[in-house]
């Protein structure tokens, strides 16, 4: 019987950037046991030497030529922006630094 504690769910929620309520954390944690049991069936077979499939079709080397095509207009680019200023997306203060 697998399980995932409330704290583990909270850690995953933080990693996935979802601010879950306490009730949600507890309820998800209680459901995860049976979900993990169901998916853990993938571990029942001996899979040594079996190749992993990431892409369903055996395609390779699909490229595009290095050619510039028209971009969106800034109006189009910003058309869905919750807020904008000076032709840029306006967002709340960013904490932390980029990679």
């Amino acid at each position, binding site marked *: 019987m697998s399980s995932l504690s409330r704290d583990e769910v909270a850690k995953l929620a933080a990693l996935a950037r979802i601010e879950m309520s306490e009730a949600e954390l507890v309820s998800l944690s209680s459901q995860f046991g049976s979900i993990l049991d169901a998916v853990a069936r*993938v571990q029942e077979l001996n899979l040594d030497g079996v190749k992993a499939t*990431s892409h369903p079709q055996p*395609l390779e080397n699909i490229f595009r030529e290095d050619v510039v095509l028209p971009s969106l207009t800034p109006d*189009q680019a910003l058309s869905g922006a919750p807020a904008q200023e000076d032709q840029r997306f306006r967002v709340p203060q960013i904490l932390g630094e980029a990679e």
Partner: protein
Amino acid sequence: MIKNTAAQMSSALEKGETTSVELTKIHLDRIADVDQKVKAFLHVDGESALKQAAAVDADRASGKKLGPLAGIPLALKDVLAQEGVPTTAGSKILQGWKPPYDSTVVAKLKAAGVVILGKTNMDEFAMGSSTENSGYGPTFNPWDLTRTPGGSSGGSAAAVSAFEAPLAIGSDTGGSIRQPAALTGIVGVRPTYGAVSRYGLIAYSSSLDQAGPFGRTVLDTAMLHAVIAGHDPKDATSINAPVPAVVAAAKSGDVKGLKIGVIKQLQGDGYQTGVQARFSESLDILASLGAQIVQVDCPSFEYALAAYYLIAPSECSSNLARFDAMRYGLRTGEVDGASAETVMNATREAGFGREVKRRIILGTYALSSGYYDAYYGSAQKIRTLIIEDYKKAFTQADVLVSPTSPITAFKIGEKSEDPIAMYLADVATIPVNLAGICGMSLPAGLADEDNLPVGFQIMAPAMQDQRLYQVGAALEAALVSKWGGHLISKAPALGGAR
């Protein structure tokens, strides 16, 4: 007229017996009449549909050469981007978003003169098998309004089966076209992965998603398939090969000498009695038409559901990361001094529904360090075994068959509290997605115990989509002559609300 097939509407248009504007109007009227009950649509844009229809009529009047579906109305699953038209993927997090671009499928529909009536309801981000997970309320099955139409393309399936549109586009990640087609008594095809461009299809699980057609007949579905399929340089996983001759196959419908493989693992326990009865009946019909029925063994299919519920959530946890309140869509929690991170967290909490969050968390877990190999890694290996099972089975048979769904349409609310029970609805459809091959569901009759439609699933190897239509057309013809009409004609009248 509204109960005609798309092929009949097409010939009426060609003969000048009707116009696209007239066709569009009667469908808009039908939507106005019944959609309050069915709730198939999230957005109907009658004005622009009529404008599009008038343009096609004008083209026709001027003698322009038009495709067979020019002027025919269609319902579009809200998962496909359409320029300037609200596109939400059934999620609150995208409420009000209007894409500044067309998906390739929409561009192809427009180029073919197909009239887009509006956007249909769906499980949020295509995650679900009942359309109950929509952020905008459920869709109701036209056969029984207390039941779900299946999902995730429940809105599209319901629209076609309720005669709100002769054709619709859905998307199928684990059965999301075939299962609702089965539950609403219509035809639905999930084309080969890479046969229809995914550009502009809002991603749920990139390696499994594929858009495809719904119709009330095999031929109608083939005609729509032919319009949307084809190579697209904007999708790096798109197959650069000619579109299989699906329309010709749907017109020929011959199974003489064909080997049809019944998959041992997709029957028996868990399959409703009436589903099993209609399935065997269909097999008998195919045999009587000259097909050879063989049994095939696909042992790894036992693990398909488990593999699917690791791969799809893993990919979705990454695909849905872009919904972060920065560039488009919902933004909430923007109180004084709130950081971008806080706003992101609050928006994703408020904008995503329960099932979407469940899958994001599951996928985040399956990919996280220390668990990757045991979960995601193993699931990808199971995927290889499933592909190998299919390969072997296709050496024994030209097509493979099974019931589409183990059960007929279930009650709204019946499974919504039990995710595992809901996941089982896709047990027979998921292997096709994992292997990237193609599958069709077509009506096999009504289950005796509940008088609800049963779907018959046909599967064919990658880029052999024409085989689906060849077998489907043969079975459909025999069943229609047995029933004295299409199954959909047995659907209860919804009556007018006006």
